[in-house]
């Protein structure tokens, strides 16, 4: 019912915008330039190591049509705290592919994107449609998008297990030039999930005095629906000595009673003609899901049960630095322009009601869990 209303509203909104857009008299805009990106990414922290390549290729076939292809691989080796308390470490691969097409008509940009993510135990397929429009002397850009995703969830070692979930997304945004040095945007997005939303491997723990350890485990049980809403305010400011300042603030809440917010400040500073430095700091905090508990008092203590640390009350802070070097023409291909970039993010997670079950202290009295992660990206971008 909620999902049906959601779609109906989305379709009406899309219709309103399309009618409005066609009533405008406009001049031509241009598509983004062709580019190719080859990237290596690495994540290491909390017992997990994930790395792999990604490739992005974007090519215009005319002044009004562009195609995008994207490939991404995660090679995962996991012995995270969730895994080692009740199961064994594992390795797996995740392949992701995307294909997109953009069509520009005057100042209206329409895009369609297909995406598939494939693992041994998870297949996610989705498509999205986006429409954006420059208006008001190109001071304002409006955008609207819809997405639908279908997921098949399996459990390794259990051939009988097969579940499904669906996701609808609707988003809208407005980007406004405020002064000759300042732009701001507001984006909102509503997401509705339904189906099997659990992680099939994770368990909750509860007090059980009949076993020597005093604690036993049972499978998590999540609600079969989740509706969420996020709003984000962004701004970018051009500083007088040619540098850029970025600001983001996002607020989020959902039907699982999670409320979250994050704030980010970024700074980009060119050095000479060929170097560019980037710095950022980001803070995130969230409240727990209503059905989360680190330790339940007994088995089947409530209808819904979760002990995912991602659903607990926690905060994290990210410090990031990046450098981009514009390669000299002598090492670029033909008439292309190339850049090499390196980015490093350090993220520190601190959990406020998720305890480390591998630590000493007795059941329910262990210290709160925390970990840090290093995220690295090295990539080359070629513009042609």
């Amino acid at each position, binding site marked *: *019912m*909620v999902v049906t*209303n959601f779609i109906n*509203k989305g379709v009406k*909104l899309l219709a*309103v*915008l399309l009618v*409005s857009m066609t009533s405008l008299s406009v001049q031509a805009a241009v598509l983004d330039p062709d580019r190719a*990106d080859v*990237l290596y990414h690495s994540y290491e922290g909390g017992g997990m190591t994930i790395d792999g390549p990604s490739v992005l290729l974007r090519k215009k076939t005319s002044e009004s049509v562009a195609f995008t292809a*994207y490939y991404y691989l995660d090679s995962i080796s996991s012995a995270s705290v969730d895994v080692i308390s009740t199961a064994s470490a594992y390795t797996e691969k995740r392949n992701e592919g*995307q294909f997109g097409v953009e069509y520009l008509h005057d100042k209206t940009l329409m895009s369609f*994107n297909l995406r598939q*993510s*494939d693992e041994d135990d998870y297949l*996610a397929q989705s498509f999205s449609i986006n429409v954006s*429009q420059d208006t*008001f002397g*190109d*001071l*304002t850009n*409006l955008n609207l998008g819809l997405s639908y995703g279908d997921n098949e969830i399996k459990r390794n070692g259990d051939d009988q297990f097969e579940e499904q979930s669906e996701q609808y*997304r609707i*988003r*809208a*945004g*407005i980007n406004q*030039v405020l002064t*000759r*040095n300042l732009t701001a*945007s507001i984006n*909102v997005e*509503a*997401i509705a999930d339904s189906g099997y939303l659990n992680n*099939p491997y994770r368990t909750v723990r509860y007090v059980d005095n009949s076993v020597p350890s005093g604690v036993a485990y049972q499978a998590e049980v999540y*609600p079969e629906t989740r509706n*969420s*809403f996020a*709003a984000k305010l962004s701004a970018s400011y*051009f500083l007088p000595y040619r540098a*850029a300042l970025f600001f983001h603030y*996002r607020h989020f*809440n*959902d*039907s*699982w009673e*999670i409320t*979250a917010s994050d704030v980010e400040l970024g700074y*980009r500073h*060119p050095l000479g003609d060929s170097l*560019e430095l980037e710095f950022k700091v980001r803070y*995130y905090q*969230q409240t727990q899901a*209503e059905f989360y508990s680190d330790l339940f008092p007994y088995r089947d203590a409530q209808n819904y049960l979760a002990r995912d640390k991602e659903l607990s009350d926690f905060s994290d802070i990210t410090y990031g630095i*990046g450098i981009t070097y514009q390669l000299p023409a002598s090492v670029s291909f033909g008439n292309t322009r190339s850049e090499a*970039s390196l980015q490093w993010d350090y993220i520190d*997670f601190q959990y406020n009601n998720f305890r480390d079950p591998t630590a000493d202290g007795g059941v329910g009295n262990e210290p709160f869990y925390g970990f840090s992660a290093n*995220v690295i*990206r090295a990539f080359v*971008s070629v513009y042609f």
Partner: protein
Amino acid sequence: MTNTLSPRVTALSLNCIALLSLISLSGCTSMGIEPWVKPYERQNLADPIMRFNRHPSASMHMAHVLEGRESARGAEGTGGGGCGCN
């Protein structure tokens, strides 16, 4: 479980977006408001260092990293849609 995000709130939000969009699309000039930053005054805004999404592959990767570790999702301004992060 209390539903903190009722369909009514979602519907109201979408209607507000539609209304604001309509005003922005067709209302400003009819209200006598003219674009106040002229095209020849936008060289700073057009500078590549001002691009939010200067490195799209890197942005998508960071969004994917956070999506699997935080509950908040949506309104990132990047792709998204199913993380496959069991």
